[in-house]
């Protein structure tokens, strides 16, 4: 009797545990997983943009040195709720690694990205702080360039059961002294899939 009970417990345990889905790493496949934008799309767009930007020579400062770049407005003109940082962060990392530019976080389109640059300067009259360690006046770098962009989505019906969705990643590097666009780039990603539902 005891043996039967143990057997039943083992059997039940196996039955109820066998089907649970264990977490796993997403394998990179050639075919897109979704009609929306995913990690690989951002990686591809960023990689292409950075290569084009660096190859263009727009970031080669005369006499050497690095440009200071700020982030301008990135417009998400798609139907997907995405964080445009997924694209811009990759570009920023690549620019920094290239040694041709540094990013400023003290000035941004919706205020400074890092408020601490300004905050630490408020400590100038605070006796509790060693004044010689507080940033001096006139030391913050003003940006030379601004990176702006837009992600546009265009969806059309391809045939009776499929739809084609195209994403355009458009980027512009503007020299702030002259207001001239030193570089512009566009990467397009297209996906073909079922027309049963919407792309988001």
């Amino acid at each position, binding site marked *: 009797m005891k043996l039967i009970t143990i057997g039943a417990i083992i059997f039940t345990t196996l039955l109820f545990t066998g089907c649970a889905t264990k977490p796993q790493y997403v394998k990179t496949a050639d075919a897109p997983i979704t009609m929306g934008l995913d990690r690989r799309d951002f990686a591809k767009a960023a990689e292409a943009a950075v290569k084009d930007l660096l190859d263009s020579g727009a970031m080669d400062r005369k006499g050497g040195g690095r440009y200071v770049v700020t982030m301008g407005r990135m*417009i998400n003109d798609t139907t997907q*709720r995405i964080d445009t940082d997924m694209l811009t962060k990759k570009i920023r990392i690549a620019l920094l690694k290239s040694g041709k530019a540094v990013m400023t976080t003290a000035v941004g389109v919706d205020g400074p990205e890092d408020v601490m640059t300004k905050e630490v300067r408020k400590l100038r009259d605070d006796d509790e702080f060693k004044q010689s360690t507080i940033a001096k006046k006139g030391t913050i770098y003003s940006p030379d360039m601004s990176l702006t962009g837009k992600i546009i989505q265009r*969806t059309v*019906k391809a045939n*009776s059961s499929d739809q084609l969705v195209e994403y355009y990643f458009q980027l512009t590097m503007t020299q702030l002294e002259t207001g001239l666009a030193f570089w512009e780039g566009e990467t397009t990603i297209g996906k073909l899939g079922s027309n049963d*539902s919407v792309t988001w």
Partner: protein
Amino acid sequence: MDLRLSRVYLLLIISVFFSGCVATTGHGDSLQTFEKVLKNSTCNYAFVQDRIEDKDDVILWASQGGSQARNCFDYNRSNLYFDKAEELYKSDVDLQSNANRVGSSASSILINNNVNDYEGNVYEKVMLNTYKGLNFMALGDFVNARIEFNRALDRQRRAKDYFSSEIKKAQQKSSRDKNYNKAQNRHTQKAIYDRYQDIFSEFRAYPDFVNPYTTYLSGLFFFLDGDYKKARDLLKESVSMQPQNEQIRADFELFDSYKREKNYAWIIYENGQSMAKRETRINIPLFIFTNKVYYAGIALPKLYERAGSYEYIQVGKQKSVVVADMDSVIKAEFEKRFSQIALEATLNLIVKTYTQYELNKSGLLGGIVGMLYQSLTNRADIRSWTALPKNFQSLRVELNGNPVIIKDSRANVISTFHVEKNINVLIYIKSSSLGDIKVHKIIKEKR
């Protein structure tokens, strides 16, 4: 009792038992209760919340809940409800498997469509994203508002295709029903359509099932977001839909050559209550028995008009102009869907009439059971998102530093706005009935 009859009894009992009360009561009571909730402007969400938690027509009640919360200026809650409905539109309607669809059409033929989950209308999906866009605008979140307006416009693009392919698919499926030819009998169909002449004749549908409000409002949004090119393109589309509309034309001309020398306030006014459905019963001839016409009562949904509120609103001598008639949008879709609704209801009636005929033959008890089954389950599906307005109106006034005094059509002051200088704004007003006015938070352009 022979075996066949006992099977019929069993089938009837099981059908009614498992389909729940709505098979016999319909949805009229719950819709009426919600009307009272809306009318009393209560911000108690228990009624919709209970239904959503019970998974009872979540798409319908989440949409209604979104409207209720918007009326209470709780834009975050409103978007939570709308998000819920949108999620289900994708998983339970768009991507529903064919197997499930066959099941739902079988139960609608055996019982009635009330037992199936509410699947909404295309115009409701478009309005869902439009309201979400408006909610995000009110919250000052133009990034997410842009996404919602893009979604609403994409749904409009899909609408045209939906009506040309999906409805055809549903009709093809019904045409394989063994009673299809009997249901399509011209005398039977004529008896039905004669009763719908009043709503189907003399109305002009907007082209391609587009809701001109979504196009126009999206244009205003993109203008206030500083995307003048996109705003202009959308207003151009709006003008092509309604070339005689003075307000739309004037706005297009402004967008076409805007130089920021002047600033404006747009006042959008949602007027009254949209068309809703109620049940109508028609005695129609059925030619299902040889050499004998049999008359039976069919229950069908029929649109009816509900009242408007103030005819217009005004600022100074300027009056608001209708930019989109929601009733026309609703009617156009209902007309397009009606042939399938009538066909399914007729097929349903034929099956029930046969069943009753068989039971009648079995004796008195059988006759009573059959009659009860038929009369109890003969209910029309009258569900729809009833919180929508009758029409949308717009009025643009130039800002000159003076306060904007908005009055109703009886010259009573609704609200006074003091708008800061050098900025364009959107003011949103909804009035479902006289005396019930909701003035939303002023929306300032993004600079």
